[in-house]
């Protein structure tokens, strides 16, 4: 019999805020333990939180990017539990009155476009970290992360497969990066996912007992954990048993789900309004300002690229994966470069250079105007396309102007018919077999021969002339 999974997720996102949520410490990852701490984030007696408005701005961007309704007044609450990485014995979060509710995210699912409703977006502080390998036979605590700003995004149970959850998370991550709300660095734990899942008969409106999967910090981990849990629930139901409500911890190394001790999950968080902070007040004006400053979201931009620039799906998707690449592309188009040529350069040679240098389109030292100049030189026949790629590498390493580099290094395109003819003759002499195949009707082999001539010329020959000369010589000698 058929079963259908019903999945909702909660994502904790570390905001790209320079300072912690309630104190003046910088929010940085990877520094020496306990070097960014103060009485407030250590929870020392008498210290009080003071809200950092930067974090609210980023949370607002997040909520508005997902089309949420913003609440003009949202209330801080204390969530109480004891754990050594939680300095005050409570986390400052939002509970009854969150910053925003009721949004949605549309993404390309494995089959169709899927729309997932966002239940709420709220702001909260992160806890510190336990270090189990710093001190022998004891745990140490690093509070550098304590008090850094997070948003929690909670979806409705609108997802149906583990694969779709992964695609949804990809869309979410891309959007968060686009709007500058988070760096989304997975290795640093910038995105952490909890998922709850149940299975039921397709079409049934009743939900089965659900389990919660916690502690997953990679998208592939989420997919694997969910697949495993869905199979387990189906097997349980098929065997005539009942799925028990429980919380499971995902162990990424062992690839297994561990049942939480019942004591660990029997928390009563005793939420109540945080008396040390006034409610967060947001004005319509602020909302309008943020809405105006939001960039076009990746999905919309991708559709526009396909429609307006007539790009292929693949090119449009690759280009819009990062806002910086897409901006770079549009700048090229803005200086009259043909969109297809621009797409080819950004996704090809430029991307190769950026990958090698671990840079993105925002920081790569060659700006669009120079690439445009280089493309212009190709179009005017001054430099061959393959030589132009070498010019790009030099531009990145040394700077300068494309035409100077071409001249200084002798990378001008060779168009002298006498010189070209001698290269062509030489290549034909060396490749009698290919010549015979061409004459035998295998016309595709011409490309190979062009490539050989280009190689002989060190990439400087004008490929169009080479091609013409090859065809001419091959047909001239036809009768011999």
């Amino acid at each position: 019999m058929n079963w259908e999974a019903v999945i909702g997720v909660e994502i904790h996102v570390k905001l790209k805020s320079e300072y912690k949520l309630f104190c003046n410490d910088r929010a940085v990852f990877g520094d020496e333990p306990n070097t960014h701490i103060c009485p407030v984030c250590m929870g020392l007696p008498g210290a009080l939180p003071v809200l950092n408005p930067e974090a609210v701005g980023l949370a607002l961007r997040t909520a508005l990017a997902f089309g949420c309704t913003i609440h003009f007044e949202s209330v801080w609450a204390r969530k109480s539990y004891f754990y050594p990485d939680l300095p005050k014995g409570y986390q400052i979060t939002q509970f009854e009155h969150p910053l925003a509710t009721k949004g949605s995210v549309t993404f390309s699912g494995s089959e169709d476009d899927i729309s997932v409703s966002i239940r709420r977006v709220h702001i909260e502080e992160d806890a510190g970290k336990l270090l189990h390998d710093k001190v022998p036979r004891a745990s140490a605590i690093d509070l550098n992360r304590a008090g850094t700003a997070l948003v929690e995004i909670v979806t409705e149970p609108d997802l149906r497969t583990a694969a779709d959850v992964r695609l949804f998370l990809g869309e979410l991550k891309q959007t968060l990066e686009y709007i500058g709300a988070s760096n989304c660095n997975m290795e640093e734990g910038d995105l952490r996912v909890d998922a709850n899942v149940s299975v039921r008969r397709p079409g049934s409106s009743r939900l089965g007992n659900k389990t919660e999967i916690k502690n997953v910090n990679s998208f592939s981990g989420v997919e694997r954990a969910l697949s495993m849990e869905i199979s387990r629930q189906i097997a349980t139901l098929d065997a005539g048993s009942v799925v028990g409500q429980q919380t499971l911890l995902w162990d990424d190394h062992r690839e297994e789900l561990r049942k939480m001790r019942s004591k660990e999950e029997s928390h009563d968080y005793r939420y109540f309004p945080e008396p040390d902070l006034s409610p967060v007040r947001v004005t319509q004006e602020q909302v309008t300002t943020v809405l105006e400053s939001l960039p076009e979201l990746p999905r919309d931009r991708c559709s526009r690229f396909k429609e307006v620039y007539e790009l292929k799906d693949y090119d449009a998707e690759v280009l819009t994966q990062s806002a910086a690449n897409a901006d770079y592309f549009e700048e090229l188009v803005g200086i009259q470069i043909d969109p297809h040529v621009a797409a080819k350069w950004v996704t090809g040679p430029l991307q190769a250079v950026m990958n090698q240098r671990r840079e993105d389109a925002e920081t790569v030292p060659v700006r669009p105007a120079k690439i445009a100049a280089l493309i212009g030189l190709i179009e005017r026949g001054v430099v061959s396309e393959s030589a132009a790629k070498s010019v790009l590498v030099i531009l990145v390493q040394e700077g300068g102007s494309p035409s100077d580099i071409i001249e200084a290094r002798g990378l001008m395109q060779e168009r002298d018919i006498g010189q070209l003819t001698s290269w062509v003759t030489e290549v034909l002499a060396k490749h009698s077999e290919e010549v015979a195949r061409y004459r035998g009707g295998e016309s595709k082999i011409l490309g190979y021969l062009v490539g050989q001539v280009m190689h002989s010329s060190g990439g400087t020959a004008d490929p169009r002339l080479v091609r013409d000369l090859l065809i001419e010589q091959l047909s001239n000698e036809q009768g011999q």
Partner: protein
Amino acid sequence: MSLQDEILSSSEVLDFRGSTLRSLDDIKELEDGPEGLNAFLAVAEPEDLEACGQGPLEGVMVALKDNICTKRLPTTCGSRILKGYRSPYEATAVQRLRQAGALIAGKTNLDEFGMGSSTENSAFGPTLNPVDRSLVPGGSSGGSAAAVAAGYVRMALGSDTGGSVRQPAAFCGVVGIKPTYGRISRYGLIAFASSLDQIGTIGATVLEASLLLEVVSGHDTRDSTSAEKPVPRYRDAAVQSIKGMVVGIPTEYFPEQLDPPVRALLDEACERLVAAGAEGRPVSLPHTEFAIPCYYVLATAEASSNLARYDGVRFGARLPAEGLDRMYELTRGKFGAEVKRRIMLGTYVLSSGYYDAYYGTAQRTRASIAHDFTTAFNEVDVLFTPTSPTPAFPLGERVLDPVAMYLSDVFTVTANLAGIPGLSVPIGTVGGLPLGGQLLGPWWGESHIIAAAGALEASYGEDT
């Protein structure tokens, strides 16, 4: 000579250096001697008296309740869990004191974490009332009130969550002011119940308590609940005329059960206010009877959360044990009985299933109590009430009866619930024991209650 100069020069600690240093020795000698009150948990050493600014308190010694963070002296909250704890930072109020030239004489005894009305809940023994050493000094700021009443210092800071400055001031025969919520920064005041806590001032006279208030008040960016309101010259209010001031007498604060001599002193104080030019008018604050339960739900709820950080992990006491849960249990077992009682009460009222019945109801009641005051202050400038139903009671009398102890806060908790300022001023003695009259004002109405208290003080002063 202005009145201010006159009062300050009458203080034996004013002559900086020589006399100050002798005073510190005096305090130690008195406290260590047979007449010791156990008012101080720590007395400063001469080298602790840091260089200070030049201001209205230059060279004046001020004592601090030991729940206000200081860098040079320990801050214990009267608790074994913070025994010997040294704060790495200083409370904003202390910084303001030092900028104004004050010298920090020492840290005074209190009910553990401010939880109590007699200073008997201190882990370091009770403070005795200097008026009669068999009586409690009130609490929780009992050490500060006793230190001022005994003449160790002329001024002290306390904290007031449900009457903890006003009630001990009344029991010891000195002046105590709890200002409007948000008037004084709470940064560095160790929290008991954050939405009710305010630092308050205790002085030998209305002028001194007012001057101290003026110095420590004002906005602080490190406390989001502190208000961006200018600070008036409260010292001037202390000598202002109250001609035409309307004084409301809330009937709910004068129950039948008040002892006739207490009642007589209160009536006399009203007459003196009228004689000074005020007009008396009866008013009603109908929700007063719900104040005590409302207060004990909200205060314990917040306390259960505020005291969660004393877990043995980062600072303070830690009792080593196998396993984390056991370490928590043993360490937190160091809290005293009253603190444990309140943590349990607070945990209970916040637990799921009970939250709305207790916390939710208490919050709605709090709004009704605040509304009573808003209505009353549409008609009157200040309210006059007793500070406490009785004068100081004997040590040990109510230790085993927490409810009787809680009920002694009946006239003071309403000001904390409503956030309004309150002040206790001596209005004579009953059987040789001082009685306090309480003046309550509207939000930011400190100047009015100071003026009324100043007029009363002057009126009694004329008798002698």
